């Protein structure tokens, strides 16, 4: 059962990723990416990490991708039938080569030492709310707080850069 579920989620996740890349419409791409995230959540759940699984949905699928979709839809505008965006001929190698190189390297790594060098599976309980909380608010407390400050600064920065003083007629 476990093996079946792993291959089921894994295959669907892979297909979702593939569909995301080959879609013409950016909106549909984003939807496939969400699908892929949901399958990843399934794999987390299989690894008995329920907290990570739910967080994957809540944060990535539920919050970040909604914002992505929001922005893409604002920029892309209405649906056009049969619209094609041709890529300039000279750009093809630059688009195709990096992913191909990554895939070849990955296959080579897995065929060699790869999977064995990953070590044992983490102890049960690593992906529960308590397990994650122990790490975040214990061992990695400083890093966690620093990252949140960095994010805060980024938000303030985005506001400062993005906000333009509007000349209103009555001012």
């Amino acid at each position, binding site marked *: 059962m476990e093996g079946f579920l792993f291959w089921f989620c894994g295959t669907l996740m892979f297909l979702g990723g593939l569909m995301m890349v080959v879609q013409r*419409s950016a*909106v*549909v791409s984003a*939807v496939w990416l*969400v699908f892929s995230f949901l399958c990843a959540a399934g794999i987390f759940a299989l690894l008995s990490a*329920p*907290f990570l699984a*739910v*967080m994957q*949905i*809540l944060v990535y*699928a*539920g*919050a970040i991708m*909604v*914002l992505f*979709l*929001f922005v893409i*839809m*604002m920029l892309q505008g*209405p*649906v056009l*039938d049969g619209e094609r965006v041709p890529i300039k001929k000279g750009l093809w190698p630059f688009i195709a080569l990096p992913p191909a190189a990554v895939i070849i390297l990955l296959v080579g790594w897995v065929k060699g030492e790869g999977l064995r060098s990953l070590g044992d599976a983490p102890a049960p309980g690593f992906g*529960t*709310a308590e397990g994650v909380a122990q790490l975040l608010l214990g061992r990695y407390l400083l890093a966690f707080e620093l990252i949140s400050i960095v994010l805060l600064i980024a938000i303030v920065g985005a506001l400062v850069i993005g906000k333009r003083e509007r000349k209103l007629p009555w001012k």
Partner: protein
Amino acid sequence: MMLFLDTLSKIGFMFVLIMGMVVVLIWMERKGAAFIQDRTGPNRASIAGIRLAGLVHPVADVFKLLFKEDIQPANRHRALYNIAPWLVMAVALSTYAVIPFGDYISIAGRKVSLVAADLNVGLLYILAVASLGTYGVIMAGWASNNKFTFLGGVRATAQMISYEINMGLALIGLVLVFSSQATPEHLREFLGADFLSGLRLTHLVAGQGDLLWGFLPKWGVVVQPLGFLLFITAVFAETNRNPFDLPEGESEIVAGYHLEYSSMKFALFFMAEYAHMVIGAALVATFYFGGYQVPWLPRPVLEAHAGSLLTIKLIGVVIISMIFSLLFFRRAQREKGKFGDARDREPGLGGALWLIVALGALGGLVLKPWGIGADGASLFASLIQVGAFVVKLVFFAWLFIWVRWTLPRFRYDQLMALGWKVMLPLGLANLVVTAVVLAMV
């Protein structure tokens, strides 16, 4: 195998409860609106003269929408346009998996928990699934390829993102209060833990069965009054109900995101809205009003006095249904030949129905309910708990309707200002105060 059957029957119960509630809520909305606006409300649709005070109207609606032509705009995005209504409905239905509607029920010596999936991150699961609900709405808005629908989808997204944060913040206070409370004695064997975990909904509800200072039920609303206000406001916003129904603001963007949908696809959006209301009501009842807990009557007390309680209940049913039956028969006498068609039979049939209920309860009294054994007492306690949950559910569903027909709609900037400038600081303050108080106690 037994686990599979148990789960299947629990899912079936929840599904029937929700879909039944959807029909009842559509009726309640129309009758409630009529009541608040001093009208009669729907009273025309009938099956062989039986109108059930308008309850036949939702049935007529279903048939109309099933057989209506499905008109789609020519320039839609075909796939997303067709998926969106199903997605909205699927999300609305999958939240119920973790909501407990009783603690357990004993069947032939086995104790079966009355929740479809007792996740130990149940609360986060609800937030996660609720956040997925945005996709259906924004997909529908974009794929219809219409400026009004698109605006509706964009509004819905911005609104849901803003209020999800407030919802989560309000709930953290609740989790803080109920985490690491000792498990009630009678549930210790069943829940299998010395301390409760606030993220697990069965634990969250079990903790609300206690009494505060010996007389006040330790419901969420008692220990977290501000959290309750914030949560219920956020729930109204998440379900896109008035006063927060800007995604479909008729006066500005016609009907918002579902403007281009017709027939059963529109019906799915419509049903999903009501299913979301049922979720909202179930969540408010579960988090802040003790879920299945009957105030001052925890399971041990219910089981100890099951015989006398059941007798009192049956006598009450007999008296009330006799009164109803009498009233119906008097009306049948008074309004004889009022319509001159099949509708004249209605009061008489109503009277007969109530009479049958009264006779059934009398029959129950003959069977000596005061002497039910331990098994019967346990079953009685379980059923009373399920009943308490349903009663709370119906009340909060009515609250949604009540608010909709009483309050005007917000303006969009007011909505955003309320979410970010009022509720967010209040939620943070609530969290800090809760944490400090809990640290001192």
